[in-house]
């Protein structure tokens, strides 16, 4: 696996991956497990994935970023069981200038959250267990919104 990992994510290693002598700016985003969600205490969670598609979709997203901006990009998403504070995802984008670095980093994390088939089961302090559905408060997105070409 290139983009998915069952091991802890080392954010500093991602910085090193995109560092280059011509890169003046690196934007790094680190997503960690919060201790709360919608007002409920979270104890731990499990990420699962449609692994071959998640890998392919991550590669497509990274390639899209490389095509749009003159950047180097590193991306890692952890799967398996995570505790509060654990890093779930990290994205690093390095470029000669910070505008491109920020734009590429933001693009990758937004697309990862929107498109990559990874699911999260949260275990709450009150004993409940739930699959997280970020679309639950909005109408369910039609499949067309996720079809190729819809991001242009």
């Amino acid at each position, binding site marked *: 696996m290139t983009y998915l990992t069952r091991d802890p994510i080392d954010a500093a290693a991602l910085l090193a991956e995109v560092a280059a002598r011509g890169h003046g700016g690196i934007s790094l985003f680190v997503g960690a497990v919060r201790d709360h969600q919608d007002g409920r205490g979270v104890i731990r969670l499990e990420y699962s994935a449609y692994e071959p*598609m998640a890998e392919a979709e991550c590669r497509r997203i990274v390639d899209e970023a490389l095509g749009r901006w003159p950047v180097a990009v590193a991306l890692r998403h952890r799967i398996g069981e995570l505790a509060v504070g654990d890093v779930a995802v990290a994205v690093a984008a390095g470029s000669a200038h910070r505008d491109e670095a920020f734009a590429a980093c933001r693009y990758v994390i937004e697309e990862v959250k929107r498109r990559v088939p990874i699911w999260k089961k949260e275990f709450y302090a009150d004993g409940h267990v739930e699959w997280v559905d970020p679309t639950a408060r909005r109408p369910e997105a039609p*499949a067309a919104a996720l079809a190729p070409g819809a991001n242009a």
Partner: protein
Amino acid sequence: MTSDVSVRVLFFARYAELMGREAVDLMVPAGATVAEVLERVRATLPEAGRLPPRPVCALNLRHVKLDARVAAGDEVALLPPVAGG
């Protein structure tokens, strides 16, 4: 006359729990759409009534619309709302 082909349908996360399984192999007419594969799933497995009417689907590791057509050996995946990151 149309020949039938075998496709594999995958269920993930909450859908796997609703279905009580992670996959099913089905025969569908060659050139069937993903929507027709879903109809065959519903006709074959009663638990499929718990799935949303138009789930997000992938075909061979790519998101597709429900009018995409399948071929022999294809992998169709039903994807609950994703929650990575």
